[in-house]
Each structure stands twice: as C-alpha cells, then as structure tokens.
C-alpha cells in the first residue's frame, strides 16, 4: 500500500453508494472492484468503435477550422447557386440504375472503363472526383452517357487538380458537379471554370436535432437567403465513394446502384510504405509508421488482409480503409430494402449481407438503364 487516505461523507451518500454498487452487480464484490469499474480503464470497446472515435477526433482536430472557413468563403456562391435538391427527379417512374465509379485497383485490373465506354448503358454515371480525368479519357463521356455526375467530398485543396485536367474543360458543360458547402473555394472555382454546373449539399458530421451543432448553424445560415428549404444533407461515410452511393439512391432516387473501382483496399502486392495518409497532429501527409511489428496480432487487426469470397481474391487494408468499409457495409445492410447494391468491382473488400456481387459485364447485360 502506498498511503492511507481518508474522507468524510454523510450517511445518505454512503447508503446511496451501497445501493448503486448493489444495482451494478457488485454487491458481493469489493469496493475496490466497484471503483475500478466506475473509474478504471477496463472499458472494452469494439475495434470498429475505437477506429471511429480515433478518426473522428483526429479529423475534427485537423479540419474543423478549415470547414468553418471554407463554408464562410463559399456562402455567396451557395446562396446564389443551386441546391442538389434540384437533382431529385420530379416523377419517380420505372426502376433505374446507377454506376458509381471509384479509382480502386480493380478498375484497371479488369479494364472496366473500356468495358463501360463501349457499352450501351443508359443509366446514371456517378464519378468520384479522383477518377474523373481517367474516366473521361477512357471514353466514358457525358455526351454518350447523358446522366453524368461528379462528386467531391474531401475538403483538401488538391482536389482541384482533378478538375483542372484539360479533358474536364472539354466535357465540363455536360457534367453536373455535386459539392459540399465546406469544400475549399478553389475546388469550386476550378470545377465551375471547367464549365460544370454546381449543386450544393450539406455533409453531415455533427448534426444534433435538438442541440447546437455546426451542421445546424450551416442550415440556418444557408436558409437565410434564397434556399428557404435548406439543402439536402448526406452521410459521407468519410469518403467520396460512399457519399456517391448515398447520393445515387437518396437524391437521384436510383433503385439499383452498382459499384466499380470501390475496393476500399489495396492489392496485396502494394508495399505499405507506398501508402500515404494525413497526420492527425499536423495535417501533413505521412507514410506508414516504420517501427511497427508487422507480425503482431495488433498489426494484423489494424492492417488486415481480407479474403473476398464473392470474387475469390485478397485485398489489404489500412485502418482508413477498415474505417471506410465498415461504414459502407453497415449502411448497405441498413438500406437493403430500399436500394439494391451490386458490387461489380470484381475485387476489393465490399461484400456481405445486402450486397450482390457480379461482374461488370453481367451487370451491363442485366441493367440497360
């Protein structure tokens, strides 16, 4: 024992403590065990919850001020611009589908852009910003695929590079671009200068129905001029692929959504040191932590190699992709009665209940519009 410590409490408090100890199932256990349960470090959380909490704290630390600043700088353009609500079809007729295009490794491996470009698909194309230049160069162009959208979610200035490619200017007039109210203004201006028509959405991150939050403040400010009914607000799942899937069924009302290039994982041959992330302390780009025992069980949980039984292949994930895929798979499961989700990536880590897997070729044969 280190020391003796004494305190004074009144009789009622002691009786209340005894009652609570009893109620918590600690009636026959020591006071020390009960205090440990109350104040100790014995809380066991799921790995999914741990990852979500660490990412949430890290992302808010790095980006919160940027988001508030960007929103303020975008405000005039939001007030004078279009709500993504305009994209909601007035009549929801017969079932129609969308293809969400990411830029995961399966896209090239299976030559999916070539297959899509030469198809007669008449459905909706929702392109993630990072994939846009390659998608257009491959011939998946809005003059052929008339219902063509591009989405940005990441709030990094470098997202502008995807819109500054000359091919974006060539087809910009035919592309509808969906941007969050907290996008860096330079991204907005680059997309607009490429000729794209911009549609604004809110991205949910701290909304509370009955309490103060930045999402709630944004809502009030946006409604102050022109947008009396506000803007649609979406879950992003922390990445543009998941956000595009949400937009497909929630705003564009597609009844079936196929995914290509949405791997949420790397090829197993990709070396860890080639993978870059954002440092939660500095906001700078960092590579894989070097002094990590890659044979430890903890490493294998944080950086798992996933077997995809639907396509009989393996992918490896960083914690970021574990974070993304956990959320996307959960959301697909939760909405499985509302929207049919087809994984046509022919690889990656998105599989499970509520997800139908098929090749892109088969999808294009089955779904014409």
């Amino acid at each position, binding site marked *: 024992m*280190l020391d003796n410590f004494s305190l004074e*409490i009144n009789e009622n408090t002691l009786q209340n403590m005894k009652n609570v100890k009893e109620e918590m199932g600690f009636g026959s256990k020591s006071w020390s065990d009960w205090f440990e349960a109350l104040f100790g470090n014995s809380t066991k959380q799921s790995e999914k919850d741990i990852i979500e909490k660490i990412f949430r704290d890290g992302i808010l630390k*790095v980006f919160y001020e940027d988001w508030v600043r960007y929103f303020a700088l975008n405000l005039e353009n939001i007030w004078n611009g279009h709500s993504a609500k305009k994209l909601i079809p007035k009549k929801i007729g017969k079932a129609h589908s969308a293809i969400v295009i990411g830029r995961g490794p399966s896209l090239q491996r299976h030559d999916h852009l070539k297959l899509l470009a030469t198809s007669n698909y008449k459905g909706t194309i929702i392109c993630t910003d990072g994939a846009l230049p390659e998608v257009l160069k491959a011939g998946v162009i809005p003059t052929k695929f008339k219902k063509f959208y591009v989405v940005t979610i990441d709030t990094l200035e470098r997202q502008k590079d995807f819109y500054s490619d000359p091919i974006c200017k060539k087809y910009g007039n035919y592309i509808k671009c969906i941007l969050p109210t907290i996008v860096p203004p330079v991204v907005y201006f680059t997309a607009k200068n490429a000729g794209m028509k911009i549609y604004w959405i809110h991205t949910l991150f701290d909304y509370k129905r009955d309490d103060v939050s930045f999402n709630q403040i944004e809502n009030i400010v946006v409604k102050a001029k022109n947008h009396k009914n506000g803007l649609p607000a979406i879950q992003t799942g922390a990445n543009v692929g998941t956000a595009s899937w949400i937009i497909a069924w929630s705003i564009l009302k597609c009844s079936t959504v196929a995914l290509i290039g949405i791997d949420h994982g790397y090829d197993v041959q990709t070396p860890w040191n080639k993978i870059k992330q954002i440092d939660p302390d500095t906001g700078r780009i960092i590579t894989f932590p070097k002094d990590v025992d890659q044979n430890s069980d903890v490493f294998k949980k944080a950086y798992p190699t996933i077997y995809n039984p639907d396509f009989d292949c393996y992918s490896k994930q960083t914690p970021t992709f574990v974070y993304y895929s956990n959320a996307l798979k959960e959301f697909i499961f939760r909405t499985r009665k509302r929207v049919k989700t087809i994984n046509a990536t022919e690889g990656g880590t998105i599989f499970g209940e509520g997800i139908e897997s098929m090749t892109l070729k088969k999808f294009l044969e089955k779904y014409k519009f």
Partner: protein
Amino acid sequence: MIKGNFKIKEIKEREPTDQEKFEQLIARSGVGSHMVFRSKNKDDELFLDEL
C-alpha cells in the same frame, strides 16, 4: 458524518493491453479528410431531405 479510510494500492508499471496497443497504432496511422457521422437518432444518420 461518517469517516472512511482508503488503503491505496501501489500500481506497478504494466504492459499496455492489446486494446491500448491497437489504439496507439490506429492513432499513428493517419486519417482521411472526412468522417463517418453518428447520431443518437438513427433516422438522421444517412440522409436528410432538407437541412
């Protein structure tokens, strides 16, 4: 009033648990630039027609 005495046990330096090691590794692995939204009201979590 009631007086109570606490006998304080010495805490020996211990190895971090696997959960703590996992948390430390995740925290060092970097983050993305957006986050999963969680709400007590599950109906609000995926999509709001108008905010």
